[in-house]
Structure formats: C-alpha cells, structure tokens
C-alpha cells in the first residue's frame, strides 16, 4: 500500500518553489548588489536563520518564548570567546556558538518548558532579563555595551583560503549557512519528530493521551530552536566582527516573533518574508521619520487583520482552497 500524504501533510508546508526562488535570488544578488545593499542583505540572511529557528519553537510547538535573545547573544559570545581566548578558526568558532546555544537552551528549557502559555512567556522573559543584565554588568568578561572586537583568521577550505573581511565572501558564507539550516529544519519538520511537534501545537493535552511525553518533545523543539538562534548570533558576531551586551537586548527576543507573525507561523521559510519586509522598512523608513515604529505597528496589524496566518500562510491556504 503506497500512501503518500505528503502534499497535504501539515498544510502549512512551504511551497518548494518559493524557497528555491528565494535562495536563487540571493545567489544572484550577491554578484550584482552594490556594497551597502549587500551588507544589508547579509544581515537579513542572518536574521532569516534566527526567524526560522524561532519558528520551530513558536510556529511548530506553539511556545511563545521571549528568551531567544539569550541564545542569540550566547551564540555571538560563543564565537567571540572562542576566537579571542581559544584562538580557534572561524569554522570551529561556529561550533562553539552552537554548543553555547545548546547548553543555554537546555538550562532555560528544563526550567521553563514545564510551564505553559503566559507562565512560559513570563519565565523566558525573566531569563532574558537576567542574561541581559549579566552581560551588561560583567564588563570584564563581555565588554558590556562597548563590546569586544574580533580579528578574524581566514578560513581555509582545502587549497582555497577565504577571508571574511571580503564582503562577497561573507555574503556567500552566510548564505551557505542559511541554505543548510533550511535543509536541516525542513527535513526535521517533515520527519516523525516534526509531525509530533505540529500535533503538540494543535492540541498538547491530546498528544499526551496518545502516549507521548509532551515535555520531552517541547524541550527538544526548544533546544533545536535555541541552537539555530545561536548559529544566527554567531554569524552576526562574525559579520560585525564584534560582540557586545547588545546581542542580549530585547530586540532579539521581539523581532523573531514579529518576523514569524508577518511571514506565517509554522512555515519555516515564511518568516523570511517577515525579515525582508521589516528590514527594508527599518532601513528606508527610519531614515526619514524618527517615529517609524508607529507605522511599523500599524502595518503589522493590517497584515494580521487580513490573515492571521501571515503572508505565506495566507498564500498557502488560498492555494489549497
């Protein structure tokens, strides 16, 4: 019996063509964009990883965390500390950032994932506040607000030596990680594990009565989410070549939620749209109006008024009906 319910499974699955077009555009744009725009797009791609990582937590298992700045900052400092103190190369430093994200997600997750809804939101917000304050105050360690600057060693892949100081190299370096992250997370979302995550989003209590230890699966999702957020933070530190307490700021907890809501919760690639819209908006509108955040809020409300599933969620549901 060959039952392939693939094309209907989950129903929030991102259309593959969207992902391919998006990534191809990025590949092409890297070659033609002027310098300033290229750096903007590099940042966007880093945020896309954060948005996707956050989507695993919020979109797939319905855990609205306010603590992801902890993992973003942790990942950034994983890179900074390992390069400064351990003198490792760029690629190993990324492993340190993943490791930092993993450890922090286990610590925060073990305590907070037991709680649900508002209690979960509050305790993750508390974790964020504690880590932010620590990062600000322990200036001898973190450099506080001023941060710590990095000198990046060059990356050697076989016979090729690449320097991240070159904007083009940096661009494609980040793009590679974005593509790999998407492949891993998309595979996970379509695996048995992903199905269990989605069923937890749909009805957590029922999943328990189907014989699953819901806490364990929510923790798994939380950790996966934390690790990819840390990757994003690590890449951001590499791109900016410095890390500061700012990486723990509230901005990095709130923005992922906004990206996911605009782009489409639970679609993984949908939040990319959110990133693009918000980043362009922030870049261009903030230049001529100081209070651009007000406009920001109105646009978010409008998008969510049209479809609670966000932009990509709206497109998917229109296509199916």
């Amino acid at each position: 019996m060959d039952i392939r319910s693939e094309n209907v499974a989950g129903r929030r699955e991102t259309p593959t063509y969207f992902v391919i077009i998006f990534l191809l555009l990025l590949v092409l744009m890297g070659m033609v964009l002027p310098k300033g725009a290229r750096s903007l797009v590099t940042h966007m791609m880093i945020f896309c990883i954060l948005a996707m990582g956050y989507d695993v937590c919020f979109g797939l298992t319905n855990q609205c965390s306010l603590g992801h700045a902890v993992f973003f900052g942790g990942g950034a400092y994983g890179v900074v500390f390992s390069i400064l103190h351990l003198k490792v190369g760029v690629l190993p430093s990324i492993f340190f950032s993943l490791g930092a994200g993993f450890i922090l997600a286990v610590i925060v997750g073990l305590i907070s994932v037991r709680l649900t809804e508002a209690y979960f939101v509050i305790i993750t917000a508390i974790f964020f506040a504690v880590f932010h304050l620590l990062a600000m105050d322990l200036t001898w360690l973190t450099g506080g607000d001023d941060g710590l600057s990095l000198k990046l060693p060059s990356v050697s892949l076989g016979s090729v030596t690449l320097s991240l100081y070159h904007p083009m190299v940096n661009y494609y370096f980040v793009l590679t990680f974005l593509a790999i992250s998407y492949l891993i997370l998309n595979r996970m979302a379509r695996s048995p594990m992903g199905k269990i995550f989605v069923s937890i989003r749909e009805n957590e209590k029922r999943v328990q009565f189907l014989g699953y230890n819901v806490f364990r699966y929510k923790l798994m999702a939380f950790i996966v989410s934390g690790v990819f957020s840390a990757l994003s933070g690590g890449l951001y530190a590499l791109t900016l070549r410095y890390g500061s307490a700012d990486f723990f700021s509230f901005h990095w907890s709130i923005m992922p939620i906004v990206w996911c809501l605009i782009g489409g919760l639970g679609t993984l690639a949908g939040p990319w749209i959110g990133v693009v819209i918000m980043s362009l908006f922030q870049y261009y509108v903030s230049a001529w109006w100081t209070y651009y955040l007000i406009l920001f809020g109105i646009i978010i409300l409008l998008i969510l008024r049209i479809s609670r599933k966000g932009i990509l969620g709206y497109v998917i549901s229109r296509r199916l009906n």
Partner: protein
Amino acid sequence: MASGNKLLETVSVTMCFGGLTALDQVTYSIQEGEVRGIIGPNGAGKTTLFNVITGELKPTSGKIFLRGKDITRFTPHIICQEGLSRTFQLTFIFPEMTVYDSIWVGVNSRARRPWNPIILAHHAADISQKTQEICHLVGLEEKRNELASNLSYGDQKILEIAMALSTQPSILLLDEPTQGVSPKEADDISEVIEKLSKKMTIILIEHSMDVVLRLCHIITVLNEGRVVAEGSPDEIRKNEEVQRIYLGEIS
C-alpha cells in the same frame, strides 16, 4: 489485591474537589473482552472516573490497577503506553491536521523511535499501513486528506475514536461517543463501536440508553459518585433505584 483475570480494576477510589466528593469509594473492575457501560445522571462522576483512570487526575485515595499493575500515580502518557486509551466527551482533536496525520501521530507513538528526525514521516511503511487500516476500519478512508476541523461533528466523533484506537490499546474508554450527533451519525458511531467490541475491551459512558443497552454486556450505574447498581441490561432496566434516579432527574 488485583487478581490476574481482571484487566482494569479500581479499588475504593475517592476523588474530592475541595468539599465536593466527585467519586466516593468506587470499586470497579472489568475483565478482558468485556464491553461495559457506565450510565448515570449529569454530575454523577462518570467522566471524573475516566479522568482518574487515565491519569489526568490523581485520586484523593484508592488505587487503580491495570493487569494487576498499580497505575495510580502514572502520568497519562505512560498509562497510554501501558495499553489504555480514551476518547473525550467534547471533540478533542488536532484541528489543523488531516485525518490521516491525526491517526498517524497515534500509530507512530508505538514505533521504536517515534521522534526520529531524519526519515520522512510518510516513508515509514509499517506505520503508514497501520494508519491506513484504522482509517478503513472506522470508515474515514475517503476523508483521510480532509482537515479535522472541516469534518462534520459526527465524523469528528469518529476521528476521536480512531485516534484513541491508533495507539493500539487493549482497553478503550469511550466518553459519550454519540453525544450531540444526529440519529444517523449515532448509528454510524455505534456501528464502529460494535465492530471494535469484537476485538477489545471497552468501557462506554453514554447518556443514550439505546446505545448502551444494545452494545454492553454489563452496565454500571453511578449516582453522586457512588456505584448504585451493576448488572445486565435487563437487570438495570428493572432496578427500582435506577428508575428512581432517572425518573427523579426528569421530574
């Protein structure tokens, strides 16, 4: 306490919510292969009994045994893995998942590594096949690609049963499976239950006497948290106290 041939047994289970005693010294047992009914007026403690058995509530006192094993303090997911599964009175499904996927999740819980992050979900052949069998058994095969929230209420009730079945339980607890559905749908649902009753042990909570009298070997009557009568459908029909409870409820 628990003897070998009893599949499920509760020993003087009491459940208090503050001052309210929802279950009062309920001792109840069911043997392999039986189909039992539980009836009683609203607030008699029927659903509370299910909640206590399935681990959602911990009883104030008393013990629960499944195959002689004390499951009183187990969490719901462990009890489910032990082979006890339930449905819910109000449909309790995955609204934005397809019928197929909803059942798939339950079947997958019995897999050796249910959390496998590497394979594609629909590539696990044995799980797909089992899911398909259950869709067929309950008659949802044609609607397997529908979203659960798009089903009619009657079909949602059937999906509810199918999801409980998907974990391959040895004992199935059904909480008012025909409540709130049309007579035609009620017939469909009792047909499904009748099919199942040949394969497994079932406890059925029902308001509709028709269904209970038709399907069950032994009926237990609960009132105000106590077992007031137990016997075959005929005995229950003739029992004076049962008549008083039911007539009293009407007047």
